[in-house]
């Protein structure tokens, strides 16, 4: 992007971000795993903030039941792969972002390959066992994870660095084989998904810029019926 166009696009990011920090984001690589309620909103924010390289992965297609909360879902996109819609949206918002989209589910066989070049991995998955596997792959690749999870109007956010106990402290090691949490009983509300996605995006920017306080070994818990917000020390 030309200097004047760059300055104009990101004008309202300054001076919260310096021009140098904006350029750092522009050369940063973020992988977004899962493009539902959390991941779709994370994509939107990454594109607008100006993260230069995005890898967007989800094997799922949009269904009518996604419309209540998933920012990328639209009535005319029912049946369309989420990763395809995400790429289109990012391109429409910020054509400078280089997007790689993959219509596939990640598992142990492809996980490491898909994330190994990223600076940060955004865990926007919807199953606990796959979150543990992603943590293992990110540890192997020496990449931090920013994790968000939601159930109803309750959300949680943490950042997990290679070597941290991470999900073992939150779910317990015995949950490695547990697929779903209480969200199967509560569903998920749009404002909770977007709220948690925003916190994840904030964590991502802080990690990329090495700035601010990061939720490392801490879990931010938010419960929106009672306006309960707590940062729990995990260690």
């Amino acid at each position, binding site marked *: 992007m030309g200097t004047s166009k760059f300055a104009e696009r990101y004008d309202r990011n300054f001076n919260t971000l310096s021009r140098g920090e904006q350029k750092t984001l522009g050369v940063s690589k973020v992988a977004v795993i899962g493009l539902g309620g959390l991941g779709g909103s994370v994509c939107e924010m990454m594109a607008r903030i100006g993260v230069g390289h995005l890898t967007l992965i989800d094997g799922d297609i949009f269904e009518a039941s996604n419309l209540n909360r998933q920012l990328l879902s639209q009535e005319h996109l029912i049946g369309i792969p989420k990763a395809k819609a995400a790429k289109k949206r990012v391109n429409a918002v910020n054509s400078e972002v280089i997007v790689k989209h993959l219509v596939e589910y990640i598992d142990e066989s492809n996980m490491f390959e898909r994330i190994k070049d990223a600076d940060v991995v955004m865990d*926007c998955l919807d*199953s606990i066992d796959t979150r543990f596997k992603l943590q293992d792959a990110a540890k192997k690749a020496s990449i931090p994870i920013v994790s968000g999870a*939601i*159930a109803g109007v*309750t959300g*949680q956010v943490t950042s997990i660095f290679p070597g941290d106990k991470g999900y073992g402290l939150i*779910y317990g090691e015995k949950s490695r084989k547990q697929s*779903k949490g209480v*969200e199967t009983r509560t569903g998920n509300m749009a404002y909770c998904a977007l709220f948690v996605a925003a916190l994840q995006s904030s964590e991502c920017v802080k990690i990329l810029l090495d700035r601010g306080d990061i939720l490392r070994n801490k879990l931010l818990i938010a419960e929106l019926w009672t306006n309960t917000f707590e940062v729990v*020390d995990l260690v």
Partner: protein
Amino acid sequence: MIKIDLKLFVTLSKYLPQDSECLELSEKTTVETLIADLGIPFKLVKLIFINGKRQDYKYQLKHNDRVGLFPPVGGG
């Protein structure tokens, strides 16, 4: 006797007793006995935090402790 402030999250909230913000308990009550007395299935509690710090079942509750019990939240 001691008094604690108890918060139960998401699906655990149905086990919340009356006066949960000022719940009276006998001294030397542990988190484990609290969970059992409230009738909460142990497998539903994944994270216990007291005064903003993660603790385990064996933690002995103290007067004025802020206690949170959290289930597995995994949705995206």
